[in-house]
């Protein structure tokens, strides 16, 4: 093993510890990863659930969408931390370290995955208490988790890129997109109940295959099309954002 891969590994683990502390020690971070997912789930299942008619038990219908919404929003929040680092002296010091520079961004991505694992576990755990009864077997669960992983990693790289481009305030604003975009999909209500002009978007936007892939796997009715569609959307998006972020991390100077 070369010195630089050693440096990259220890550098990344140091950055993961840093980002976990950032989350665990801020009220925002805790609300975002635990309270918000629980509130959204409860709102939909308990408050709106009674009025919803999706042909199935609503809790079974909506849980995958809540997981994807929270994961997307949680990943998007990476942008705020990255943008904040860019406005203090921190980024300059990191850039002048012998450590492989991408350790900083890799730390953000790994932390985002860990954070979303916790959020998703909260949502799934609570949804069982609310009557969620998934029918998928172990292989289906693993597929659903893999789909979410690809989505979260790609979303986090996009957030890194936005964090490098935007001010902390604008970065924080950009995360709201991830709160609202999932509503215009098949996640919360069937697309057929949406106004006609918005259906095209709802059916074809990149979050729809993620939600559908998670839902069909958890419910045991594997629809592999959505898995492939998820990969077709999010792998290129993630790779492009990763490459962009790696270049910008070296170049961008804000202030």
């Amino acid at each position: 093993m070369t010195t630089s891969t050693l440096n990259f590994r220890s550098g990344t683990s140091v950055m993961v510890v840093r980002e976990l502390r950032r989350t665990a020690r801020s009220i925002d971070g805790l609300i975002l990863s635990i309270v918000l997912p629980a509130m959204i789930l409860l709102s939909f299942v308990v408050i709106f659930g009674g009025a919803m008619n999706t042909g199935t038990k609503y809790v079974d219908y909506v849980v995958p969408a809540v997981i994807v919404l929270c994961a997307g929003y949680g990943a998007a929040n990476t942008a705020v931390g990255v943008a904040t680092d860019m406005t203090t002296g921190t980024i300059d010091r990191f850039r002048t370290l012998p450590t492989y520079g991408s350790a900083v961004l890799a730390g953000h991505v790994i932390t985002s995955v860990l954070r979303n694992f916790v959020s998703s576990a909260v949502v799934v755990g609570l949804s069982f208490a609310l009557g969620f009864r998934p029918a998928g077997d172990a292989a289906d669960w693993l597929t659903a988790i893999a789909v979410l992983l690809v989505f979260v990693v790609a979303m986090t790289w996009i957030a890194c890129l936005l964090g490098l481009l935007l001010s902390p305030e604008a970065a924080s604003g950009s995360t709201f997109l991830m709160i609202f975009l999932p509503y215009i999909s098949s996640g919360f209500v069937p697309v057929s109940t949406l106004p006609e002009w918005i259906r095209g978007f709802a059916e074809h936007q990149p979050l729809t295959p993620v939600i559908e892939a998670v839902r069909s796997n958890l419910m045991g009715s594997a629809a592999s099309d959505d898995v492939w569609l998820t990969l077709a959307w999010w792998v290129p998006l993630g790779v492009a954002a990763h490459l962009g972020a790696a270049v910008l991390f070296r170049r961008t100077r804000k202030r």
Partner: protein
Amino acid sequence: MQLSTSHSQRHAGQPIVRAERIHKRFGAHKVLTGVDIELWEGEVVALLGINGAGKTTLINILSTLLKPDQGTAAIAGIDLLASPASARRHFSLTGQYAALDDFQSGHENLVMMARLGGLPRRDAHARARQLLESFELTTAAAKPVSSYSGGMRRRLDLAAGIASRPAALFLDEPTTGLDPQSRHRLWQEIRQLARDGTAILLTTQYLEEADRLADRILILHHGTLVAEGTGSELKGLLGGTHQVRFSFASLEDLDQASALTQATAVDPDAWSLTVATSNTASTIRQVLADLGGTNVANIAILQPTLDDVFLSLTEPNEPTQPAKEPAP
């Protein structure tokens, strides 16, 4: 006016930092037009210049954050342009803005920087404890940095900068915004680092800081180094010129007097005027004769300060400001 002293002859071997003919422009704005710099083990060099002179730009070039348009630079013999990543093992930057995490404790910040600088976990913890002790931050070690005072932050930031024991340390305006006591404290820390062998290049807008802290002062103006030397060498540039200050009992007296004499500066707030001269006795006699009835309350002869040198180098056509009392 150019003063060059033969510092390189005082040292053996090679300098830790050597930059030659550095040019940098932003668009049409030429910020650096041929700067040469050498930095040797254990010395503190102050880069002095007004706001916008290009101090940060030069520090950023030496820190591999910016590429120069022309020129070469090496740290520990490693070419910064050809191998920036290897060069980064040998220096550290403490920029104008603190690079600390508010949500981590002082100890955690230091361990993080030591580990990112390449120290194994165990060594990093030992190093953090040692730094906290020498910077007298031990009692605050476990507290989050968000609770630190401005002076404590600066000290911790400096400690974080040297966590991985760099050979060269670049400090961009390290004492800006500090109260005098914290500033003196930081000076002591910086001098101690130099005694331990670190080569230190710092930028400052404070002449007093450069005078008291630095072994060598470089004055950056209009893109080049217009002077280089110790504080007293630079003061010698004024060729033995002193300022004689005449204070008056009232503003009316001062107004009358300034109409009658060739003052180099008039200070209406202090009811005083100053005259620059290399022959103080004859000047005093002359001025008193010119003033006739006007009441002179006090006469003081002021040693030249670095301010005078700086102003004479950077604003050659402007009259110099009234000299300050020499530091006690």
